[in-house]
C-alpha cells in the first residue's frame, strides 16, 4: 500500500539538477513523479522511480545525499471535488498532510497524487475504509 519515495539533497548550483537526471538516465531508472522544495541555498528533490533502492545506491555513489521516505499514492476520478473528499477524510481523522504532488502519468481519465502524511499507516487505513484506491509500487 505504501510507495517508496526517493528524497535527494541538492545544492543550489546551476547544473546540479542535470547531474541528477544524468545519473538516472545512465542507470535506466524511470521517473514517475517529481517535485522540488527549495530554500535559500539548497533544495530537496522528491521523486517516485521504478527502482528506488537502486536509485538511492547510485545517487549515493555519485556524491548525492539521498534517502527513502514512505508516502502514499492515491488514485481518484479526475473531477472537481475528488481531491477534496480525500483530504476531508484525512482531516476528519486528524492526519496531517506534509505535502502532495502529482504523478507524471496515470490510468486514462484518472488523477494520481503522491501524499506525504504524518501517519502513513493510519492514513492508509482511513483511505481504504472510504474506498479510495491506493496505488502500489507495481501499479505505477
Amino acid at each position, binding site marked *: 500500500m505504501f510507495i517508496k519515495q526517493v528524497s535527494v*539533497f541538492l*545544492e543550489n548550483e546551476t547544473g546540479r539538477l542535470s547531474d541528477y537526471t544524468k545519473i538516472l538516465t545512465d542507470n535506466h531508472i524511470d521517473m514517475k513523479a517529481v517535485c522540488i522544495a527549495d*530554500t535559500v*541555498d539548497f533544495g530537496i528533490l*522528491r521523486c517516485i522511480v521504478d527502482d528506488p533502492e537502486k536509485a538511492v545506491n547510485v545517487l549515493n555513489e555519485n556524491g548525492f545525499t539521498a*534517502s527513502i521516505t514512505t508516502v502514499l499514492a492515491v488514485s481518484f476520478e479526475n473531477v472537481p471535488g475528488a481531491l477534496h473528499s480525500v483530504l476531508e477524510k484525512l482531516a476528519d481523522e486528524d492526519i496531517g498532510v506534509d505535502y502532495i504532488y502529482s504523478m507524471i502519468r496515470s490510468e486514462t481519465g484518472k488523477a494520481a497524487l503522491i501524499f506525504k502524511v504524518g501517519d502513513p499507516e493510519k492514513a492508509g487505513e482511513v483511505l481504504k475504509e472510504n474506498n479510495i484506491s491506493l496505488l502500489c509500487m507495481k501499479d505505477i
Partner: protein
Amino acid sequence: MIWNKTAECAERKELEKIQLTKLKRTVERIYKNVETYRDKMQQKGIAPGDITSLEDLKKLPFTTKDDLRENYPYGMFASPLSEIVRIHASSGTTGKPTVVGYTRRDLENWAECIARCFAMAGGDKSSVVQVAYGYGLFTGGLGAHGGAEYMGASVIPMSSGNTQKQILLMKDFKSTILCCTPSYALTISEALKKAGTTTDELALESGIFGAEPWTAGMKKEIEKGLGIKAYDIYGLSEIMGPGVACSCSEDNGMHIMEDMFIAETIDPKTEEVLPYGEKGEIVFTTIGKEGIPLIRYRTRDICSLMPEKCGCGRTTLRMSRVMGRSDDMLIIRGVNVFPSQIESVISGFAELTLNYKILVGRKDNKDTFEVHVELAEGLAIDDIKFVEELRKRVDHDLRAVLGIGCTLRFLSEGTLPRSEGKAVRVEDTRNLSERV
C-alpha cells in the same frame, strides 16, 4: 611494550645529566661548524663554554624557518656533505623548501625514535606495518619505514594514495599497523565502509597517525571506522621527522624522546619560557643530531607540556595534542580563528562528515567567512525542517566556539575532495597586501 627502558624510563636526574652532556656537545658543534649560529651567539655575547646547566638553554638564540630558508640549501648543516647520507625537504608552500640532512648515525637515531613509537602502539617484530605516508622528500614515508624495519616488523611501503589498493593489501597482507596522516586514515575508513568491508575482515590493530593537527573527535571516528586504537605521532622534518614524540596506551599526551630533544614552551609573542601546563608554542633543541642540529627551533605548534609520570611507566615529558599552529591562525574580522576549533565543532555532529572547508575572502572591504560541511549518509533529508534545524544547531555551536558568525553551507556527502596526505582545509583568497 617499552622499546628502550633506559632512555624512556630514566630518573629525571639521570636524564638531565645526559641532556646537559649532549647539549654542550651540540652547542660546541654548531658554534664550530655553522656560521649562522656562531654569528647569532656572538651577537648575544655567548660562547659554548657559558652553557654549564640546562637552565642556560634560555641564553641561546632561537632558530626559525627563515634561518633555514636564508641558508638554503646546505648553510645550516653541521656535517660536510661527505658525511650526509640522506636529504629530505619540507613542502615549502611559499618559496623554497627547507632542506635537512642526515648522517648515518642520525638515521639510526631516527629509526630508534620511531621504533619506540611503534612499541607504544603495541608493535613488535611480528607486526605488519603498512606505511601510507607519502614516500619522497616528505619525511613521513621513509621515516616510518626506517623505524618499522629497525624494529624488525614486516613493512609494506605503500606510500599514500591508491585507496582501493590500500584496502586490498590491508586485507590480504593482514597489516596490523597503519601509518598515515589522520585525514588519509579517514579517507581509507570511508572507502572501507563504501566497499562494504567490515573491520572483522582486517587484521588491523592500531594506527600511528600524524603530520597534521587533528581533534579527539576525529580520532574517535577513525578508531570506530577502522576498528583500531589510534596513536598520535609528532614530528617535523626540521627536528628529525615523525617520531619526536608519540602517545602511549594511556592516550594522555605524547612522550617526547627527551634523550634526543629538549622541549620548551614559549609565549609566541614575548618569547618568554612558560611553566609546564601552560599552552604555548613548543620549541625544540636537538641534542643528538649531527647533520643539522637546531637550537631552540620555533615549531609554531601550539600545545602544553606535562611533566607527571605516566601510567605506562615512562618518565619522559609529554606534550599535549597540537591545538593548532600559530601560523594556521586566521584573523577574520579581527577575531583569531583556528581550523581545529571548527573541526572540534563539526566532530560533535553525527549528522556531518569530518570533511570540511573554510573559505575566507574579501568583499566590499569586509571579510567573508564560509564553512562548507558535508551531510552524512542516511539522514532524514526529506524533512526540510530537520535540515534547517540542523543548520541552526551547527551555526549556533560554531558561533559559540569562534565568537563570530559564518555562512554555513551544507553539501552532499562525498562532495569535498578527500585527502591522501595533509588535508587542505582553508582557502584564503584575501589579498593581504591590499590590507592596511
